[in-house]
Every structure is written in structure tokens, then in C-alpha cells.
């Protein structure tokens, strides 16, 4: 159990990379990138976890009564989830432009167009 969550994060990252490289559709590639992003959140939160800990949110908890997990990594992951979604939107907008200009979303065909 000591390293299992880290290995899961590594697995998600590697599968996402595999999908990115072998993708035949740019929209699918953007989806694979979203999978890669997910791995970083899992890794960050796994680093901050503490056995039997609870969230450092005191609206329904008296300070000092229970062990707490690390809030710093949570803050990092939380902003990135939302910002990551807008970056996904930017990439999808680029894909739409490519579809308009070249009439295809297959990266292999795009390479042939240029050469």
C-alpha cells in the first residue's frame, strides 16, 4: 500500500501518453491529454494524504481534534482542475481551426498535406 497510489498515477500517465501518440483523431488526442492531466492530480493528492486524516476544513470540525491531510497540494490541484478545463477548450478550438483549414482531424493526413 506504500507505493500503490503512485504506481496508479504513473499507469494513468503512461496510458494517456500511449493514446496521444497512437491517436488518429485530434479530438481523441485532446481527450487523452485530459487523462494525462488526471494522473498529476492523483499523484499530488496521494503525496499529501495521511493515514486516518481528514480534510483541513473547519466549518464542521474543531481545530486540533483529528489528524489533517496536507492542504497545500490540494490547493495546487484544485486550481489546476478548472484551468486545465479551459486549456482543453483552447486545444479543442485549435482542432476546430485545423478542421476548417485542412478538412481533416487525422494527424497522419495532416503530415501528408504538408510534405
Amino acid at each position, binding site marked *: 500500500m506504500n507505493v500503490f497510489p503512485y504506481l496508479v498515477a504513473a499507469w494513468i500517465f503512461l496510458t494517456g501518453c500511449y493514446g496521444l501518440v497512437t491517436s488518429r483523431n485530434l479530438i481523441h488526442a485532446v481527450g487523452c491529454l485530459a487523462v494525462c492531466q488526471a494522473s498529476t492530480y492523483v499523484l499530488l493528492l496521494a503525496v499529501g494524504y495521511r493515514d486516518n486524516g481528514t480534510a483541513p476544513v473547519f466549518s*464542521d470540525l474543531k481545530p486540533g481534534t483529528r489528524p489533517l491531510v496536507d*492542504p497545500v497540494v490540494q490547493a495546487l490541484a484544485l486550481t489546476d482542475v478548472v484551468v486545465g478545463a479551459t486549456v482543453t477548450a483552447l486545444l479543442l478550438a485549435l482542432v476546430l481551426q485545423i478542421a476548417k483549414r485542412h478538412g481533416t482531424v487525422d494527424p497522419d493526413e495532416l503530415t501528408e498535406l504538408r510534405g
Partner: protein
Amino acid sequence: MSRRLRLWLLGVGGAGLAALLVAACLDVPAFGRRSHPYGERAVRASLARHTANVVSSVNFDQRAYDTLGEMSILFAAVLGCVVLLRQAGDEHRADPRPAEVALPVRRYALLVLPVALVTGLYVIAHGQLSPGGGFQGGVVAATALHLLYLGADYRALERVRPTGVFEVTDSLAACSYLVLGLAGLLAGTAFLANTLLPYGTFNTLSSGGLVPLLNAAIGMEVASAVVVLLAGFLDQAVEIEREKGS
């Protein structure tokens, strides 16, 4: 590069990366360990400033400068989308045909829309107390607005959503974050320092000094950013068509 060569490269590179990652995982401090020095200091600092949600305190007080960076990325991404998705010279707008939606679905959408909007505002407003904050609540409120597209049709949504207003709100919210930061400089402390306002009573809505204000600015920014983004995509998918014969 041929497909086969690319797969070979991926295989070699992926295997190498996997080996390095596993080696790194075995050396990282164990999962669920006891000591979190940064976390403990962050909790202490947050309690000293009467902010009940430590994560919000880290985001909008202790690491507010980092959030400024995240906000700029968000702003830049939205700007990029608006530029990329604008109507090109060889395109025209076609009025979308009105949609027929079954009555239960329509009723559900119109009933849930206000509930979701209020929930979004609640999540933003309670950011410094319970889980939530500007980032999450902004997305919820903006998504709620699009129930109008799902439950009615695109023209109904366009009537209540002047894109220009949301673009201006987006910029205003980004500016207000900066101005709130600069206020600290004017008061003689540091940029984005949480020293201006009284910290208030612990676990009440007005606690945390600058945190609720920055939180609200981010909430406005995220909500209008998502609305503008989706407006661009909806325009492209529903309305904009290429001129015939071009």
C-alpha cells in the same frame, strides 16, 4: 516519420519512462505518512487569520500570487478561444431551427436552472468556510445557465446571455483581483498581502480578511470565462456555417 518507426520510438521511450517513474515511486515518502511539515504550517497560518477552509486560505492568502498566475492562464486561454472561434470571412450565421423538447425534460431544465445557479453562488460565497470557492462555484453557475440550451433551444439561451457583457465582466474580474492586490501595496505592505481588512470572527461569512473578496473576484472571472468559452463553441456548432460554394 512512418507509423511503425513512431511506435518503436514510443515503445523504447515509454519503457524508459516507466522504469524511471517506478524507480521514483519507490523512493517517494510512503503513502499516508505522518509528517507533513508544509501542511501543518499552512493550517497554523490559516487559523491565525481566522479562515476556516485552509485550502481557500492557501489559494487566496498564503499563495495568492500563484492564483494570480493561474488566473492569467485562464484569461489567456479564454482570449485564445475567442480569437480562434470568431466568425471567419467565408462563414455566415444560419438561424438554428427551434428544437422540440419533451415536456418533462423542459420542465426539469427550467426548474433545476435556478436551483443550480443558487448552488453555484452558495459554493462561491462559502468558499472560506466549507469546501468550495470561486473556481468550483463559477463553473457550476456557468454550467447552470446552459440548461436553457439543453431544455429549450439555442435562441432562448442567446436572449439571456449577451456575450459582450460576459467578456467585459471577465476582464473586470481579472482587474479587480489585481486592484485588490495593489491595495496592499498602497497600504504600505506587500502585493496581495492579507493585512488590510480585519480577520473577523472564525467560521462566519465575513472572516478571513481579503480571502472572501479575492474568492468572489475569481468566482466572477471563472463563471464569465466559462460562459464566453461555451458561447464560442455553441456558435460554431449550432450557428456558423461555411458560405455555399466557397
